[in-house]
Structure formats: structure tokens, C-alpha cells
């Protein structure tokens, strides 16, 4: 469901056409009182109010019910108004100290991990005496990064240093920026997300440069004391909190009740470095060649697949990594390293599409850690359907064929999308308006 107010073209169209059989109804719904043929004011009692979440009709007499002219969904309007509530602004005029948070900005956005770390920074600020400011250090291009809402009082945002873009892999330049921040702001803490997106790397580099012994894999941090996960996730280490902290995911709650200034800070000078690591760019990786265990989107084939060339085409068109059930492998239709399951590879995909796989127990074990499972199967009683988040019952060949056409039309840009979004919103309206 979305908060964006949606127009209903059909309603608008009916409202433009006085001869439409539903014209009166629509006018009644949308513009309140109507005059009858005798000039009497007519009210349509059915059009008043809305159905509440518990199924009982509710009449809201507080605001103008007729405000939603032109088919604008009053509910959607209400919600969007709600989302625009101004959060209180948290201001730090003269900070006594700084806490630096170096965000990953993976894909240009603040990840939930980044936000957790910012939340942690505010906890440390609160615990300390004096007024502290959280400096978000963002290196590289940022898109839709709401630093103010995520809790950045101050910002160091650089997209390039001496002509070198900071968006790719350039830890040496980034380290130089951090050193500049260190020398100019001398943050009380340096917080990094302990992540594979660069946070752990940069944090370790800074710690080594500053000869600080960092707190790593930290999941419970306060001003004096930290709890960290040890090797193989088997131990916890209780130790004093240090200056450089690499924080695990969900270490603290993100900021969600205040807005922050996100006031930019200009760095006076950044040391110049000669990088010894050069980023030659991301390598094109054929999704079909990603190892199964790593793949995030798997299209998996079982005994129910008949047309194998079609299956491969769909996988290519969707950009999915191919998987297979044991039977499909045994029958020689797929190579052995594509086998998913307890006897094959345990997969961790975010989306796992099982085509014609009924779901032997070993297979189900192997996909236990998948997020969303989609099943295409003829037999609606099979175990895979019981596990799946979305199941479609039918012949895999036909459905794959349609899927292929959809994927291809998406690629070529000719969206033959039916007005799904509108259909959805009108459905919502039916419940609410």
C-alpha cells in the first residue's frame, strides 16, 4: 500500500459524463449533497462514512467528508498527511565534542545498519556529559539519504577528493579524509558499521593508523563497557569501550523521533595520498555463474520442467541463478553443482522460485534459509506449496512462457503493465472510503 494520493481515472471520467448511469452515485459520493428533481436536498446515507478496521461503519464528522473531489482517495490523503508530520528538530549549537559515524552508503543509500550505528552514536552522546554532536561522514554519491532524519547533527559529505571520486573502492583516499576529520574535530568516538560494504575495512584501517585498538563486532556498547562477538560467533568478549568501534547490525535502535540539522562541515585540508590500490571497476558477473550458495535470486527446476531450453531462457531473462532438484540433476538435465538441498547446496537466496519441484524433505532443508519462496506447480497439495509465500498452480511451461514475455517486455521498456497500481488502490478504497 502506498501513501501517494492516487487519482481514479474511471471516477473522473464518470463525473465528466452526466449521462453515465453511475453519474449520480459518483457525484453523491464525491460532492456530498445533491438536489433532487424537486429541488429538495437529497442525501445518500450509504455514501456517508467508511468501514473501520473492525468491519463497522464509521462516520467521521470532524472534517469535510466531501473534500476528496476528483476521485481522490480521502484515506490516502489522510495517510500522506500523517507521514508529513514534522518531527521535532534536535539542535546542537555549540558542540562540546563530536562522535563521528562513518556510514557505508552502500548503493548511495543509508542502510538500516548505518541508521543503527547513528542511533548508537546518539546513545553515546546522551550518556556523556556536555553537548555532543554526531558527525556523519559520508563518502561517495548519496541518493535519497535522509541524513537529517537518520540523526546526523553535522555532515562531512564528500563525493571526490582531489579529483578522485569516492564512490568506488578507494580506501586510501577515504582514510585521508578520516584523518582530516580526526585532526580537525578530534571525535570522542569513531563509529563504523562492521559490515562487508566497507565499514569494517575502513574502521580497521583507521584504527591501525591511529594505533587505537578497536572494539569489533560490538553489539552492546555504552560509554565504558562493550560486549563483542568473538570468532565463529561462539564467544562474547566483555571489554572497556574504545575510541574506534565497529558495530554489529542491530546494535542500537535508529533515530526515529527527531530531526537533526545535518549541517555540513567543510574540512580545511585533506592530506594528499598516492593510492596503491586502483579500482578497475566492478566485473560483469553472469548470474548463471554465481555460486548457488551466494546467489540472491534462484530459479530452480525440478521434475516438472519439460522444456529445458525455455527454463534457461527464463533464467537468463530474469537474471536469476539456476538451481535444480536432485531428480533434475540425476536425470542429467542440470549439472550436479546446481543441486539445491541437504545433499546438494544449502542456499540463502532472498527469492527462490521453485518450478515443478514438489519438495522432497532434503530439498526443503536446503532452502530453509531462503526469504521468499515462489512455487510453480501442478500439484497444489505438494510440500513446496505449503512452504511457499506465493504459489501458482498450473502448467510450468505456460507460466514460464508468460514470465519470459513479461521479462522481455520489461527489458525492452515496452511496459504492457495493466493498471495494477490503480486496481490495488481502488480495492483499498472499497475497504476504507
Amino acid at each position: 500500500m502506498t501513501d501517494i494520493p492516487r487519482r481514479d481515472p474511471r471516477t473522473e471520467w464518470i463525473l465528466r459524463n452526466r449521462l453515465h448511469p453511475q453519474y449520480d452515485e459518483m457525484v453523491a459520493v464525491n460532492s456530498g449533497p445533491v438536489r433532487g428533481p424537486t429541488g429538495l436536498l437529497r442525501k445518500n446515507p450509504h455514501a456517508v462514512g467508511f468501514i473501520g478496521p473492525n468491519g463497522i461503519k464509521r462516520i467521521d464528522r470532524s472534517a469535510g467528508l466531501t473534500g476528496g473531489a476528483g476521485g481522490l482517495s480521502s484515506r490516502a490523503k489522510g495517510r500522506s498527511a500523517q507521514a508529513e508530520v514534522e518531527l521535532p528538530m534536535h539542535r546542537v549549537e555549540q558542540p562540546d565534542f563530536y562522535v563521528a559515524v562513518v556510514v557505508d552508503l552502500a548503493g548511495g543509500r543509508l542502510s538500516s545498519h548505518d541508521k543503527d550505528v547513528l542511533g548508537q552514536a546518539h546513545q553515546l552522546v546522551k550518556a556523556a556529559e556536555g553537548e555532543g554532536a554526531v558527525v556523519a561522514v559520508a563518502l561517495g554519491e548519496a541518493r535519497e539519504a535522509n541524513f537529517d532524519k537518520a540523526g546526523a547533527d553535522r555532515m562531512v559529505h564528500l563525493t571526490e577528493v582531489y579529483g578522485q571520486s569516492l564512490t568506488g573502492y578507494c580506501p586510501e583516499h577515504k582514510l585521508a579524509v578520516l584523518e582530516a576529520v580526526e585532526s580537525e574535530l578530534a571525535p570522542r568516538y569513531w563509529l563504523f558499521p562492521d559490515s562487508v560494504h566497507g565499514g569494517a575495512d575502513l574502521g580497521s584501517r583507521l584504527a591501525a593508523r591511529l594505533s587505537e585498538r578497536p572494539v569489533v563486532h560490538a553489539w552492546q556498547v555504552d560509554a565504558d563497557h562493550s560486549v563483542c562477538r568473538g570468532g565463529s560467533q561462539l564467544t562474547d568478549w566483555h571489554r572497556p569501550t574504545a575510541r574506534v568501534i565497529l558495530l554489529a547490525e542491530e546494535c542500537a535502535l535508529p533515530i526515529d523521533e527527531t530531526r537533526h540539522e545535518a549541517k555540513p562541515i567543510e574540512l580545511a585540508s585533506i592530506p594528499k595520498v598516492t593510492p596503491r590500490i586502483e579500482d578497475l571497476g566492478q566485473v560483469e558477473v553472469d548470474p548463471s555463474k554465481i555460486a548457488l550458495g551466494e546467489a540472491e535470486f534462484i530459479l530452480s527446476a525440478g521434475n516438472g520442467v519439460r522444456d529445458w531450453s525455455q527454463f534457461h531462457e527464463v533464467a537468463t531473462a530474469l537474471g536469476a541463478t539456476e538451481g535444480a532438484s536432485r531428480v533434475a540433476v540425476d536425470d542429467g538435465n542440470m549439472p550436479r553443482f546446481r543441486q539445491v538441498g541437504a545433499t546438494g547446496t544449502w542456499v540463502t537466496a532472498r527469492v527462490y522460485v521453485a518450478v515443478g519441484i514438489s519438495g522432497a524433505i532434503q530439498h526443503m532443508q536446503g532452502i530453509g534459509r531462503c526469504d521468499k519462496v515462489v512455487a510453480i506447480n501442478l500439484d497444489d497439495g505438494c510440500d513446496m506449496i505449503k512452504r511457499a509465500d506465493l504459489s501458482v498452480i498450473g502448467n510450468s511451461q505456460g507460466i514460464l512462457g508468460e514470465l519470459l514475455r513479461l521479462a522481455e517486455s520489461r527489458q525492452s521498456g515496452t511496459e504492457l503493465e495493466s493498471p495494477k497500481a490503480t486496481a490495488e488502490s481502488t480495492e483499498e478504497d472499497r475497504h476504507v472510503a
Partner: protein
Amino acid sequence: MSPDSFPNSFSNPDLKVASLISVGQHPKSGRARRASQDARAVELGLKMAGSSSRLIHVGGGDETGLRQYLGMGLPEITLLEADGRADAVPILVRHLKEQPADIVLTGIHAERGEASGMVPYLLAEYLGWPIVPRIADIQKVEEGFAEVLQALPRGQRRLLRVSLPFIATVDNAAPDARQYAFGPARRGLMDGVAVDAPVDETRLEWQESPAKPRPKRLNVVKAKSAADRFKAATAKPQGQGGKVIRDGTDREKAEAIMELLIAEGVVR
């Protein structure tokens, strides 16, 4: 396991490759074993420099764990014997200064202890070498530069060019370590050289305890209205019985699937 998704590792027997190895532990049984990332580092070293690549271990020399590295087909381990509580970094710095290497490989984190993953960074800082984290492969070494494939999440790769000598940590995405065999493991040499190193005093003050299960974050809904709170409380938990589409054309079914794929962001 994985197919040859990328060209095979570069190989040059003259290259001086050293792998820093530690004793790992099995996540289920806690039993000592070769650490999986370190073993991948050894594998990469073996592929690049054959059996002339060196294995270096600092510490007490746990037999079972270390012998598994020898079982991969290397003749010996340079065992720098030190107290288990000693700081490995100064020992390694000294050793690498005495017997230089072009490429030093190791795992990202240890499987035991604090597992801070700082050793390679500190080595790089003290030796003044560049460090490349999380590599999947080394594709080319020529004219004092190496082309290194860095592993990114979800099977993605980035190509980096780095000057020799350098330190690299090896990601789990690197090729699986070869099987270790009993025979070579038994025969391999593990002659220790006693080195003196200061005990890591700071660490002694820390407390170690078995990992406590971390609380899973609940989906806290800060609802603004009674209706929203009601909805949040009664919403069906995810994953309990999915949606099943029985009727409709193939087209509609395919659209339903496509919608999910787009919503999940796997189809862009």
C-alpha cells in the same frame, strides 16, 4: 563446487607468497581444525606459487589444526612459537622483514578468540604495505602490480590493481580449499622457532564468555492512530501459509510472480 566463473588463478612459482594461518574451530563442535578462510588463503597460495608458498603460524602450535594445512600438500610450517597470549603482530612484522614476501595472504577473521581481523591491517600499517580485504582471486601479477578480484556480497566482484608487496585477506567466496590428506599431514614438518614476544596485557583484562543469543529486534510499530495499532497487532505474521493462485490465466499467474520479484528487488 562452483564452476569456473572466472579465469583460473595466476600461477608463477617464483612469486614469494606467504600465508598466515591460525587454528580454527568448527562452529558446531568447537573442535580444532584449519580455519576455513585461512585454508582458502593457503589454497590461493598453492595455486599461485605451488608448494614453495610459505605457511606461517604464530602461537603454541596446536597439532590437529595445523597439520590439516600441511595435509593440503605443503612440506612445512614456519612455526613462530610464542605464548598463546602474546601479540602476534610484532613477531610477524619482524619475520616478514627478515624473510620478505611479495604477497601475504590470510583470512578475514580468526575463528577463535576476539577475531578482530586487525592483524593484517596492523601488519600493513607497520610494514607500509597496501592491504586488500576480501579477495576472491588473484588474476595476474606482473611488473610489480597484481590484479586482484575482490568479493562483494551476493556473488559480485570488483577488479583491483595493487602494487607489490601487499597483504590480502581472503573471502569465503574464494575457491574452496583443497582436501587435506592424512599422509602429507603426518609427514609435514612443523619445527618451531621460539620467539619472545610481549604478552598482550590489555587482552588479559577482558572477559570471555559463551555467546549469549542476541535478542531479535521486534518490528516495533509506532502507530499514530488506534486503527494502525490495531492493524499492527493483528497483522498476520509473515510466512504462515502463502498466497495460492489456482485460477486465472497463465498471464495473470506470471504477472503475480513478476510483481513479487519486482517488489523484492531481484528483477530490476
